[in-house]
């Protein structure tokens, strides 16, 4: 996979001229969350989903499959090990895709500001559309963040996926700095021992 993992850069995105407004509306009203719950923020999701806040009324639905997901929620601190998975999953998602980070940890390391093994600045590695501060943000705050991203989609400002494509070299450099060159191969091989 190594030689072909960046061919999405050269891939020409489809432009829907006539129905683009319709699709944009649909994108806004139908955000599917990639349920990749890292850190302690994951526990904030059930209240959001259940009767009290019920995000499904906005068409938001947790979805285990990244291919049809739209919104990537990073719900807490990110370690290098998790970050690898996050990057891989993110690259599997199909444009347009949005990233929302939860709480202080992904923003600046939070309480782990001096940990040797926590990623301090998430947006060095992946583009972020909305960041919610707090440790942890309450569900209301998360809802607000979701509303924010909906507004951004409507106005066309949620362009993290574009930024990732345009600045891939930079992101890649940062990733490689953190993990070392060829980390995908290495990580894959490491996994062999468990099989």
């Amino acid at each position: 996979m190594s030689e072909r993992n960046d061919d999405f850069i050269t891939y020409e995105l489809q432009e829907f001229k006539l129905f683009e407004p319709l699709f944009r509306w649909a994108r806004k009203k139908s955000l599917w969350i990639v349920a990749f719950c890292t850190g302690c923020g994951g526990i904030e999701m059930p209240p959001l989903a259940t009767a009290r806040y019920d995000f499904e009324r906005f068409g938001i639905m947790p979805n285990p499959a990244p291919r049809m997901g739209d919104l990537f929620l990073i719900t807490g601190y990110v370690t290098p090990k998790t970050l690898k998975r996050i990057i891989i999953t993110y690259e599997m998602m199909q444009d347009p895709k949005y990233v929302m980070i939860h709480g202080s940890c992904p923003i600046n390391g939070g309480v782990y500001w001096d940990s040797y093994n926590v990623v301090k600045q998430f947006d060095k590695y992946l583009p972020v559309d909305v960041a919610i501060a707090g440790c942890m943000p309450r569900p209301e705050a998360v809802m607000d963040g979701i509303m924010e991203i909906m507004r951004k989609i409507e106005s066309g400002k949620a362009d993290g996926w574009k930024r990732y494509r345009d600045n891939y070299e930079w992101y890649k450099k940062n990733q490689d700095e953190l993990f070392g060159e060829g980390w995908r191969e290495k990580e894959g091989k490491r996994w062999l021992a468990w099989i």
Partner: protein
Amino acid sequence: MIGIDWKIVLEVIGMLIYATFMGFIFMGIERKAMARIQRRVGPPLYQPILDTLKLLGKKESVSHGLIYDFGPVFALGATITALLFIPIANFQLFSSNADLIVVAYLLEVPMLGIMLGAMSSGNPYSAVGVQRGLLTMVAMQLPYGLALIAIVQHWGSFKLSEIVALQSVHGWSITVPALLLAFIVFDIVFQAMLGLEPFDIITAPAEISMGPMLEYGGKHAALLFTQHAVQLFAETAFFAVLFLGGASNLIELLIKQIAVLFIAIFVASIYPRFTIDQAAKFFWKWPTIIGIIAVLLTV
């Protein structure tokens, strides 16, 4: 067949649009009703349409190869085919050209399409999903077949339109004791056909991520959602035709379809999920026994 009958062309186009739309609404009803049972507000009824549009509107699309593309297309195509051979309310469509067996088969064909695509992705979760899907099908096939046989034997015809006509004269199928048994069997099987609990083993979101659907995204998933909508409509219509006396107009049919749907939803919302071998054993026990009683009563 040479001279194109414009009336039927219009009917077909109209019915396709109607069925797709109603299918999405049924999916919405499903989600809404489920939400209401869980004391949530739930999404709007048209939510599945939005989802589908969003998926179709993805600017990127990936593929694992030709078969991966062909699978969803084939699934939707086959579902449309199945739909057009079911007499829907007062629209006979092509139903005089194919009978119950053909429709029953055509309703299973989409599964093959989904499986083909899922398998060609090479994802083991999908493979497990495929395995579960096929085993569910194997398991439900016997009671399903028995229920259909009971219907055919009682009414003495394979033609769906004739079955409807006979029911309008002699009363609905479920008023016949033997066919009531068949109805029970069919309803259990129906749960599995729709992929609802306790037989949602195929997708099992929390276990195997989405099973066969896992690797689909963008327009592929949009096709599969559309397929699911049409299939939902077709299957409920099929159910209504077989057991609830068909319908003379679309409204009547809609009521019956929704009634059928609600039974499924209610069952789904209170049962947990079977494991696959439990499902197989279950299907080969009570539904089969009831089915055998039903067919023997109708001999």
